[in-house]
């Protein structure tokens, strides 16, 4: 009897049988072979509580099982003897020990395997067929994954576009936009080296400082940062520190268009991933402290800001420390694939070692300070995604502080809008250690 015939026979019976109870003992469809075993050992995952004694003895009865293997899915099957069956209730596996003169060498994981359970008369179960196919070889990868996925749990988005719109009497419409991207090469990229994945990171803030009344609608980027980056992950697993990620910005720029200024920059930012505990079954809180350094040189700067003459001639070399934290308070949905609701906060303080501009506009009066004072940036987002399509969410955003290159102060701004965001799926698949 060929394995195809066995599968056909079992599927016919399965179609006619009533569905199994969700909270009863069940054999799943997943069968593996024990890696590194001296001879093949078949392992079938189970779920539900332990079977009743009578059923357990039937599952353990080797007369109710058949096992065979093939060198190829179309090759002639070779039946093997089922020696014994054990139920491992701690890992929820049913383990089948086989023997015979025609066993393949080693653990048998290079061959195709089929196991069939045919319950005896009187047992409330249906015949089941379990299949195992060898992986396609080292480095082939397993399941295919899409490039992007919805942002889940406390994920930081890898692609983000946030837009808001303000309209009212006596003012032209004010649009604000926030773009953020950080995309890196996947694990099988030939460009990875020493655990670092190369990629691209950018962040653009447009009209963050605009306030009504506004006499013309414009799209002037207040802060643009973009450049080539490297990214790596290190598990630490020591004390409260679970691991850390490091982003090295090789070469990049900081720009603003409204008052033309540009810096060429390099640096790094390390994120410490702390162990955390859930607040409840679905609620959780995260805290990721960050620290880094930024260094570079100012390439050009404006001679006047908002009609006020400024002297930025001493604005040259740049060296800053960066400290801060990212945090999330969220409620995951029941299947843990995304958030129903999340509040995320991000705080950075830049500590310049050299004089840098700081621009404050109050009631139309602009003042410029060239100093080493700390530059704060706080951003809090409340995101609610009621739809099935989790790439889109409603968003309320609070921002305060200043961003390079000109550090124009955004003074307690609250906005509401739509958020389009995604995470890079194969970013998990970074190079080996």
């Amino acid at each position, binding site marked *: 009897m060929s394995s195809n015939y066995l599968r056909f026979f079992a599927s016919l019976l399965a179609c006619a049988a009533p569905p199994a109870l969700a909270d009863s003992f069940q054999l799943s469809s997943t069968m593996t072979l*024990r890696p590194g075993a001296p001879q093949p050992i078949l392992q079938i995952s189970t779920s539900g509580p332990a079977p009743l004694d009578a059923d357990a003895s039937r599952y353990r009865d080797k007369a109710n099982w058949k096992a065979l293997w093939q060198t190829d899915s179309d090759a002639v099957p070779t039946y093997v003897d089922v020696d014994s069956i054990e139920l491992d209730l701690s890992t*929820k*596996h049913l*383990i089948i020990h086989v023997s015979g003169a025609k066993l393949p060498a080693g653990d048998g994981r290079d061959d195709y395997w089929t196991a069939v359970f045919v319950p005896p008369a009187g047992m409330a179960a249906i015949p089941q067929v379990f299949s195992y196919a060898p992986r396609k070889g*080292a480095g082939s990868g397993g399941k295919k994954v899409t490039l992007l996925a919805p942002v889940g749990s406390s994920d930081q988005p890898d692609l983000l576009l946030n837009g808001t719109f303000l309209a009212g009497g006596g003012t032209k419409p004010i649009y604000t936009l926030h773009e953020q991207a950080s995309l890196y090469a996947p694990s099988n990229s030939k460009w990875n080296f020493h655990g670092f994945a190369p990629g691209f990171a950018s962040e653009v803030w447009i009209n963050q400082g605009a306030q009504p009344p506004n006499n013309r609608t414009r799209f002037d980027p207040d802060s643009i940062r973009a450049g080539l980056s490297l990214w790596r992950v290190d*598990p630490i697993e020591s004390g409260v520190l*679970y691991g850390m990620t490091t982003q090295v910005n090789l070469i990049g720029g900081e720009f603003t268009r409204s008052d033309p200024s540009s810096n060429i920059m390099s640096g790094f930012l390390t994120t410490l991933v702390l162990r955390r505990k859930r607040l409840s079954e679905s609620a959780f809180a995260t805290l990721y402290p960050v620290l880094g350094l930024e260094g570079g040189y100012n390439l050009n700067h404006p001679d006047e800001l908002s009609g006020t003459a400024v002297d930025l001639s001493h604005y040259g070399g740049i060296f800053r420390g960066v400290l801060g934290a990212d945090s999330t308070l969220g409620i*995951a949905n029941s299947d843990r694939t995304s958030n129903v609701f999340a509040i995320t906060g991000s705080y950075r303080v830049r500590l310049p070692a050299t004089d840098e501009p700081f621009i404050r506009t109050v009631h139309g009066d602009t003042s410029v300070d060239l100093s080493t004072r700390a530059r704060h940036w706080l951003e809090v987002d409340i995101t609610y995604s009621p739809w099935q399509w989790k790439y889109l969410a409603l968003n309320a955003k609070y921002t305060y502080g200043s961003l390079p290159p000109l550090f124009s102060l955004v003074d307690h701004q609250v906005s509401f809008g739509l958020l389009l965001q995604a995470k890079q799926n194969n970013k998990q698949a970074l190079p080996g250690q």
Partner: protein
Amino acid sequence: MGPGREPLTPQRCQEIVVESTPDSGRFTAGSDPAKVTLFDLGVVSSTESVIFVRAVKRSLAPWQINDGDLASSPDTTVQQSADSIAQNVF
């Protein structure tokens, strides 16, 4: 089997998965590996997922697994993650 590579029993695969999570203490002797998810053990975002993958790979040595072959998302059960090890190590 390569030199120095001990067989990976379901028990060993499960131990590696649980010990590689941020909050492994939540998985006790009576926990159901087919129901407890990595989210329950502290893998609440892709950041922890990435570190979890690295920690599993470190514990598996000299066995190896491709990052994308290890089930590591927060909604994955301990059993599914352990099975993905048995299925895909080389």
